[in-house]
C-alpha cells in the first residue's frame, strides 16, 4: 500500500499541504495570542514550515546526500544542494532574530512587568 506514497507528485502534495498547515498554525498563533513570547514562538513555527517546504520539495526518491566520493559520483541521483544551503542560512538568521526578539520581550517585562500586547500603552501619551 505504500507504493502510492512513493510517487513524486504525492510526496510533493503531502509536503506542501503539511507545511502550509504548519504555516497557518503559526499564523493563527501570531494573530490570536496576546503574550509576547508566544508571538515570537509562533513566528518560529512559521519559519519551520518554510524550511520543511524547501527541503521536502527538492526530495527525490532513492536519492543520496550531495557528497561526492569515489563510490558516489552519479550527480543525477544526488539531492539538490542549493535549498540545503539556503535553509542553512535561513535557520541561522531565524535563530538570531528569535533570540533578539525574546531579549526585547525580557527587557520589556523587566521595565513594565507586562507581556500582554493589549496592555501596551507606553507610547500613547
Amino acid at each position, binding site marked *: 500500500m505504500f507504493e502510492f506514497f512513493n510517487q513524486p507528485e504525492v510526496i*510533493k502534495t503531502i509536503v*506542501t*499541504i503539511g507545511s*502550509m*498547515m504548519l504555516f*497557518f498554525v503559526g*499564523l*493563527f498563533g501570531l*494573530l*490570536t495570542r496576546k503574550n509576547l513570547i508566544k508571538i515570537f514562538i509562533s513566528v518560529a513555527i512559521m519559519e519551520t514550515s518554510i524550511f520543511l517546504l524547501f527541503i521536502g*520539495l*527538492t526530495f527525490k526518491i532513492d536519492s543520496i*546526500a*550531495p*557528497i*561526492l*566520493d*569515489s563510490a558516489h559520483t552519479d*550527480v*543525477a541521483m*544526488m*539531492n*539538490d*544542494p*542549493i535549498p*540545503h*544551503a539556503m535553509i*542553512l*542560512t535561513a*535557520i*541561522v*538568521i531565524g535563530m*538570531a*532574530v528569535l*533570540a*533578539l526578539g*525574546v*531579549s*526585547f520581550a*525580557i*527587557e520589556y517585562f*523587566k521595565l513594565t512587568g507586562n507581556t500582554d500586547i493589549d496592555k501596551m500603552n507606553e507610547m500613547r501619551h
Partner: protein
Amino acid sequence: MNLKRELPTTTLSGFALSGLLVLTILNILLQNMPTKIQTAGDALLKLNATEGVANAVTTVVVFFRGFDTLGEIAVLFIASLGIGLMLHSNAKCNIKVESNFMLQTASTLLFPIILLFGVYVMIYGHLSPGGGFQGGVIIASAVLLLLISHKEFEVPHSVIVALETFAGVSYVLIGLIGLFVLDTFLGNFLPHDISQMGLLLSGGIIPIIYIIVGIKVGSEMSMIVQNLIKRDHDV
C-alpha cells in the same frame, strides 16, 4: 449562560480561504517553473568537483555564496550585540540556583567530549555532513551545559572578544587575498586539486573559511546563551 466555547468561524473560514489561495498560487508557480531552475543543482554539483570539496552544500555555502555567508555572520554578530546591549546588567550577581552534585560531575565529564565533537564537525565540514554553523552551535551547547550546572561559571569576555575579532578579520583578509591574487573576492588561491578530494587537506580555502565561521558562530552563540541566562537580582 452558554458554557460552550464559541468557535471563531469567521476567522477560521478566512484562514481556510487564504490557505487555499496560497496553495493555488504555489501550485501554479511550481507547474510553470523554468527548467533552468530545476537543473541548477546538477550544474552546481558538476562545478563542485572543480573545487575539490566532497560536500556540495559546503561549496555552495562557503564558495559560491561566500560573500552572502560573510553578511550572514555579520547579521549574527549584530544580533549578539543587540542581545548584549539589551540584557546587559551592571549588577554582578546572578540568581542561578546551586545544582546538585550529579549534574555538576556529569557536565564536567561531558563538556570536553561535546567540545571535541563540535570541533570534529567543524573541521570535517567539507567531507561529511556538518560544518561551521553546526559545529559552532554544538560548542555553544557545551557552554550552555556548563552555564546551567555551575553557578560560578562564566565565559571570559576577553576570550570571546579575541576569538570573534580573529575570526571576523581573518575571513575578510582571506577574501581580500583572493581579490589580489585571483581578481575575485574569496577566490580559491590555495591548491585545490580534484585528485585530493576526500582528504582532510583539500579544497583550498574552503575548510579554512568554514573553521573560521565555526569559531565565530561558537563564540557568538556562547555569548548569547550567557546573556540570556545571566539576570539581575531584582527580577
